[in-house]
């Protein structure tokens, strides 16, 4: 974990409202693992007050890639960054995906949830490990990769405007049907509704599945206790979250095994 002044090398739109930011941050880049995140100080002014957490979407030498969506004040400021801009980062934070080399990885990403999935995808490409990548979106213009089932890349759209017509869960199920016999392992990140759907399905079907989740964060490294998430926590209370009912997204996550989380909130 470092505090590092990174330098923007590139910042460009890659789909509607979605940007890719490359920063030179040698120390963080050297240690970041797929699934980890950085906490970004977007402004010297006191609004926004808190840092903004963003998953690492890839590492290339000294460079760190982020993929972000314009949401509010913080991401609007990020959009304005030109190359050369100095950006204070805290990271790498949290713990990432637990990858089991014996199993077929099926990666499922939706929206900007693609960021930590993309990093894992690139890692698997790097070690030449065959895997599936399922990416869900509402429509074509939110996609920035090409539908390429022959190479294990399946795009889905809610409106059928590109790739597979259906949700990311539909896409995952179709991949599962095609790979019935391989022992597999699912990695998913995306909007809450998608994670709930995939988590609920995989837990019911007893499929090994990890989810990368989001929660409002104060610090990103365990000192505020703000990023709690309801979880099925075991008796050991020496974890940073101190409790038996909550986990901390920043320390115990952001990657959790689906069966450890309380997924239905009503």
């Amino acid at each position, binding site marked *: *974990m*470092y*505090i590092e002044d990174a330098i923007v090398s590139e910042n460009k739109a890659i789909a509607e409202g979605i940007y890719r930011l490359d920063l030179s941050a040698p120390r963080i880049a050297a240690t970041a693992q797929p699934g980890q995140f950085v906490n970004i*100080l977007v402004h010297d002014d*006191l*609004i*926004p*007050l*808190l*840092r903004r957490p963003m998953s690492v979407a890839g590492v290339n030498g000294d460079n760190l890639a982020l993929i972000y969506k314009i949401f509010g004040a913080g991401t609007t400021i990020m959009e304005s960054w030109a190359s050369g801009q100095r950006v*204070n980062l*805290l990271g790498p934070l949290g713990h990432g995906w637990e990858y089991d080399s014996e199993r077929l990885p099926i990666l499922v990403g939706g929206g900007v949830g693609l960021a930590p999935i993309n990093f894992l995808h690139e890692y698997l490409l790097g070690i030449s490990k065959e895997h599936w990548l399922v990416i869900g979106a509402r429509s074509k213009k939110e996609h920035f990769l090409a539908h390429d089932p022959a190479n294990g890349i399946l795009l889905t759209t809610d409106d059928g405007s590109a790739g597979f017509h259906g949700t990311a869960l539909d896409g995952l199920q179709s991949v599962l049907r095609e790979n019935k016999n391989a022992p597999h392992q699912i990695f998913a990140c995306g909007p809450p509704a998608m994670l709930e759907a995939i988590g609920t399905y995989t837990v019911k079907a007893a499929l090994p599945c990890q989810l990368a989740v989001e*929660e*409002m*964060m*104060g*610090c*990103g*490294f*365990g*000192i*505020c*206790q*703000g*990023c*709690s*998430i*309801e979880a099925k926590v075991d008796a050991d*209370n*020496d974890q*940073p*979250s*101190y*409790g*038996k*009912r*909550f986990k901390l997204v920043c320390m115990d996550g952001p990657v959790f095994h689906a069966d450890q989380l309380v997924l239905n909130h009503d």
Partner: protein
Amino acid sequence: MIDVTVKLSDQLILKNPVLTASGTFGYGDEGRDLVDVNQLGGIVTKSITLHPREGHPPPRIAETAAGMLNAIGLANVGVEHFCREKLPYLAGLETAVFVSIAGSTMDEYVEVLSTIEQANLGFAGYEINISCPNVKKGGMEFGVDANMTRELTQRLREATDRFMMIKLSPNVTDIGLIARAAEQGGADAVSAINTVVGMDIDPVTGNFKVSTGLCGLSGPAIRPVALAAVYRVAQAVSIPVIGVGGISAAEDVVRFVRAGAHAVQIGTLNYRDPGIGVKISARLPELLRKIGAGSLGELRGLVN
């Protein structure tokens, strides 16, 4: 040489006036890769209770204009685990460590403190978080009632010889009155302020932004409120006052000292920059030189 040390008592001299505020720097060890806490004037731990506490359901925090809201719910490991796993590390630090204590009855406070005393380790003292609902008085906070504050302070005073500061709540009509009660009860110092009662609601969904509804506001937004509180408290008591609330720069330290504080604590801003306390304390000599003061103490109460 500009003198930035702070004498809190004959036994307790801080190397500089910058401490971390309770609940905003964990147990002091989480950030050890990032910050050398020994360069701080001191650290105050998360509030410790008798039993481990889960804390409140999510969401626990939200952001507001130049501030943040929180209802962590005193999530902590409990005193036993604290004494075993955290205190030895803290006792080994070369900075003044204050253990923050919370409870829901007076007996609980005393029991927590006594348990820590029994650990028999070296650290500076305690901060008593009295912004806790008193279960015996129907959930009324200790910190809003002068009599409860005096009695609680007295009982804790009997249980320890260490430095003990009482942390005041700003959510009262007359904070000076509560400060005096703490002084009468035997407190060595008071710290002010804890968070200001606040709330936010998502206009579209209608959800409370923090699950408990009512919660606590902190950060630069409340700095003027904290400064006013410290000023009033410093007029009301003759023990040292520690200022807390929205501090984000060396200039703010001077503001609080001029309002009457001996030292300050930094809370929310640690989340933004875990190194801020060290940076601020390093910048103080330069600022004092610019002001033309030879020591921080010279400026205490100096306002016109």
